[in-house]
């Protein structure tokens, strides 16, 4: 049908707008094989006379709208969104979806299912930083995005709704852009608030939604960068006068962002931008507080990770023992750690405590953007690998007493080789608590927190060949 529509367009150059639209209607109705529709005239569809309501040129009256405002907000998004995109893709890398079952039941053989490199262990706060930025900058951009959408809303109701194939495609692309942006922001924001209102896998939907957004975002930059630069460098008044003039001369030139009959100003543009800025800061401190932690954690007064329990073991947990279904007998004196490699070994907690112990300050950094740095003590993963006769680089898959998709994780050979990667038995000088993974848990620099498996019962080492 699209081909058919295109073939009609040369004829459009010489006919009036009304005839054009009627032929479009005919083309569509003909396409569905309905003869009576093809004769139907649509007196209300006149490209020069928009219907009443939001399509009218006098409907949108705020004097604040205009190319300069849109361009400023666009520039902020142009700087901020790539940070969110890159840190998001880095988070996918940090999960190392190519290893074991780390892809969380995602099939990673599709077009965008790749990760670029084995995730480094230096610096230990790498993931805390990238994911903290992802969530914090994402939140801070919410008011900017909302203001940007507000500033261009007249375009949604431009009249006539379609002009030529280019316009149709561009509007489709904008629907993808706005839809995927809102989808990514909404799913991300409700995920950090533990409201699992959707019936789909968050990681999968958020990841592929991001690619959809990336595509539409790049196209939008390609098409609008010039406009943005012009709007920022020209004097606003001149620009608006020219824009309004053009819009009134050519009714099909696209809706002007500047109101044709503005209402009296009750707020300045700078005040609006100031409000957006304060809103960004308000949201930024929420996530920055739970990401930096320590005394700043209380800044996250509207996020669940703004609170901790008291004491040396009061730092946040990702899941309680109760929620993970860990029973007291399973972690009692009968608990054994089963190691597998070239040979298998079983160790009690006392035997583990008898091995060389090492202590490091390492962060737990969650995909939700919060992190907490504590002093962990335990046995090096490398030493455990030697116990089951593994020499040289090896990966390890840890299995928790917790069942389900998050009950196991695979660490790459970079992680296993790092001195600071521990099977921790103690934290802050005390035995682990049940909620922190007693009797033993993995702690590893710079990996997503969910890969620091708690209540470990089995560890399987695999030599990496080549």
């Amino acid at each position, binding site marked *: 049908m699209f081909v058919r529509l*295109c073939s009609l*367009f040369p004829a459009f*150059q010489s006919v009036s707008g009304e005839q054009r639209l009627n032929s479009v209607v005919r083309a569509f109705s003909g396409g569905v094989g309905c003869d009576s529709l093809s004769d139907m005239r649509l007196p209300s569809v006149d490209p020069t006379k928009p219907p*009443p*309501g939001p399509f009218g040129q006098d*409907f*949108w*009256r*705020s004097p*604040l*709208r*205009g190319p300069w405002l849109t361009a400023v907000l666009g520039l902020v998004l142009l700087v901020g969104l790539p940070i969110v995109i890159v840190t998001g893709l880095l988070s996918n890398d940090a999960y190392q979806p190519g290893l074991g079952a780390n892809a969380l039941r*995602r099939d990673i053989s*599709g077009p965008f299912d790749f990760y670029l490199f084995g995730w480094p262990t230096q610096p230990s706060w790498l993931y805390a930083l990238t994911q903290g930025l992802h969530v914090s900058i994402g939140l801070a951009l*919410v008011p900017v995005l909302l203001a940007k*959408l507000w500033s261009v809303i007249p375009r949604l109701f431009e009249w006539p709704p379609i*002009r*030529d194939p*280019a316009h149709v*495609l*561009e509007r*489709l692309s904008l*629907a993808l852009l706005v839809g995927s942006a809102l*989808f990514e922001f*909404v*799913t991300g924001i*409700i995920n950090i608030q*533990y*409201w*699992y209102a959707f*019936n*789909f896998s968050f990681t*999968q*939907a958020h990841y*592929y939604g991001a*690619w*959809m957004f990336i*595509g*539409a975002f790049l196209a939008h930059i390609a*098409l609008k960068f010039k406009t943005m630069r012009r709007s920022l460098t020209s004097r606003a*008044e001149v620009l608006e006068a020219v824009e309004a003039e053009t819009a009134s001369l050519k009714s099909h030139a696209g809706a002007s962002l500047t109101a044709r*009959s*503005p*209402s*009296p*100003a*009750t707020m*300045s543009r*700078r*005040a609006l931008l*100031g*409000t957006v800025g*304060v809103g960004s800061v*308000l949201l930024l401190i929420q996530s920055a507080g739970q990401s930096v932690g320590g005394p700043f954690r209380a800044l996250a007064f*509207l*996020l*669940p990770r703004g*609170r901790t329990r008291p004491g040396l073991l009061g730092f946040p*947990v990702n899941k*309680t023992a109760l929620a993970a279904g860990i029973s007291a007998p399973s972690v009692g004196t009968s608990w054994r750690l089963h190691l597998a490699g070239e040979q298998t070994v079983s160790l009690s907690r006392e035997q583990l405590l008898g091995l060389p112990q090492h202590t490091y300050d390492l962060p737990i950094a969650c995909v939700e953007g919060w992190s907490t740095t504590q002093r962990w003590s335990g046995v090096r993963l490398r030493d455990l690998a030697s116990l089951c006769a593994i020499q040289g680089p090896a990966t390890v898959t840890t299995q928790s007493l917790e069942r389900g998709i998050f009950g196991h994780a695979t660490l790459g050979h970079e992680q296993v080789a790092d001195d600071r990667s521990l099977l921790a038995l103690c934290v802050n000088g005390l035995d682990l608590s049940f909620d922190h993974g007693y009797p033993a848990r993995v702690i590893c620099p710079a990996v997503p927190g969910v890969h620091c498996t708690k209540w470990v019962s089995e560890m399987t080492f695999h030599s990496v060949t080549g």
Partner: protein
Amino acid sequence: MTQVRRVRALYGAGPLHLLALLASFAIAAAAVVGWFQRPREVVNVLEWFVAAILIHDLVLLPLYSLLDWIAFGRQWERADGPRQTTILARVNPTPYLRIPAILSGLLLVVFFPVIFGLGTQTELSASGIPETGYLARWLLATGVMYGVSGIAYATAAARVRASLERDESDLKQTPPEAEEAAPEPDQTVAEAQKAATEPVGTVTAADEAAREPDQAAPEPDHTASDDAAARPPASG
């Protein structure tokens, strides 16, 4: 060249325009393939995708525009009306009321799941802390923002009042022949406003707004606002 022109005539824009859009559609199509890994979930994903657009563009945006119009719409007429001499007219209270409302609404839009406890059970099993009381925190934050805004307004109003009193006493002291040279009433108002909008102490958003109440783009369109009542609600 003629080829390019033909494309332009047929398509409505240059070939690069077409290329950029086709590339973005190709990426989107390839991304959607990923969603089909779990076919049962695709419908739900698409529902959320479409609902996100519809709810923002056709519910949220019109709703907050309407609320703004209900709350501050009369300001538009007043700004256009005859000059008034009360403090309310000289120090426009709108930004001081509107900015905290925008910020409070923003916090609500972003954090409503936590504020209304929609994830409380999951939060409890995640953190082990009963996650309640966020509604009170949000209300408190709103109250604090209005408090700060109120202080900023009171400061601005006090400055205007002080400068008015100063002008009045100046007028009394000036001898009759010099009175003619005294500033025009309009100028006095302008000066008072200028005095009121100088920065005070900590700079809040309301201060920022108050500093330039007259800077918003085009001059008010008198003919447009005369029949404002007959118009449909506009956003902004």
